[in-house]
């Protein structure tokens, strides 16, 4: 991972934290994780995934595990989905976002029940709805910006 790429991910993390502070309950790291999955660079995927899981689990208030399971299932669903559709289009990410929101609903409900934390189904449903809406748009903005940075980086290396 070059310094430019590392700096790009760091900037992404800062923006995602700021957005999460503005909109409670939503995950703005997920779009970045999808981007890392699409690039199929395994060392980068592991570093980015570990960083995002650490951040999400650290700022959350449930016991460790929910985000880890969510991101692991996201990776599996992504590789399965790539066998059926082209995994780089906006439509794919939209469908992927909807599916991941459903997965998040189930995981959150399961873990909240396991930890005896009372949860409100309607507010969780709203959060998942917003998550499904925001995920493809954040991914689109991030992929456009990232394409620019990577192209510039490659041009400089040449």
């Amino acid at each position: 991972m070059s310094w430019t790429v590392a700096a790009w991910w760091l900037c992404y993390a800062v923006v995602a934290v700021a957005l999460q502070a503005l909109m409670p309950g939503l995950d703005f790291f997920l779009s970045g994780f999808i981007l890392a999955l699409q690039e199929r660079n395994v060392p980068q995927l592991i570093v980015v995934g570990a960083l995002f899981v650490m951040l999400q689990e650290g700022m959350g208030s449930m016991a460790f595990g929910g985000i880890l399971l969510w991101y692991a299932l996201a990776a599996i669903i992504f590789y399965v989905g790539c066998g059926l559709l082209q995994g780089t289009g906006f439509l794919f990410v939209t469908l992927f976002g909807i599916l991941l929101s459903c997965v998040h609903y189930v995981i959150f409900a399961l873990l909240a029940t396991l930890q005896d934390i009372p949860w409100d189904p309607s507010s969780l449903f709203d959060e998942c709805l917003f998550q499904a809406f925001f995920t493809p748009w954040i991914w689109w903005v991030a992929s456009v910006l990232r394409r620019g940075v990577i192209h510039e980086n490659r041009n400089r290396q040449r």
Partner: protein
Amino acid sequence: MLPRRIILLIICTLLLFLGVYTWNQRTGQWDRLCASVGLEFTGGIMRGLDSLHDSLAGVWNSYVDLRNVRRENDELKARLRVLEQRLAGTREESAELIRLRRLMHLEYPASWPARASRVLAWRMGPNAALSTIMLSSGYLTGAAPGTPVTSWEGVVGRVLKAGPSTSVALLLTDPGSRVAVITSEGRVQGILSGGGPGLPLELRFVRQNAPVRVGEMLVTSGIDSCYPKGIPVARITAISTEGTSRSGASVLEIQAEPLVNFHRLEEVFLLQRPLDSITPESDAVYTRRTPVMERPEEAPNVASPASGDGA
């Protein structure tokens, strides 16, 4: 990829997750690691954004938006005069109280020193199931888990988890929050539990004929050893006589509203436990289950219900 391999992969992931989850529930290692790394990193970013906001807002408020400063200054001066008069009145009463305590050899608990801290953010991320706030102090700066958090209005909550210089505090309004309180006039003890965001607090285990009234203040009783005695917590808003405890005993159903306006919270105080004070039986901040009490008279034993089942 073959369907059988996909199913096998999902089963392996779930088994791995269950292993990590149960190991963490027993040891808490991953939670501690995430609090030290993830929470600290988030706190650093939020601190940077907060100072950026402060400097921008400071320039606007100090140099541009000065329309109401004169009027506000006059109002504050008038309020200062009223408060000075009130202080002069209470100074004599306070001195008399100290003299009387000394005469009666009444031992009074040592005061809890306070440290100020900034509110960096409210609940963040998809993993935030509880009503919490993020603070700019960690276990190195006086915000160890269990530390009481107050504001000038009253009790805010307790520190739930802490990194070296950032922490997360559970708010009074969360359903998992419990505070041992006493009514300011009737001196009736009970346990105040959160009702959830936007919902009233609930005062539990108060017997039917207890002398309580609407509008009465609830202050910390101090018997749970988690909070010092006498900090204002909430005000009673409704009383119903139709309540029953789990054992079938008649109790009052009492609702209360917190004194703190959580939406306007910017700075808080972290109260440091004096060295000679009693430490609570359990450091559990989040109470998972509703404590079972056989009789309303058993309410003062508040340390025991949370001791075994805290997060």
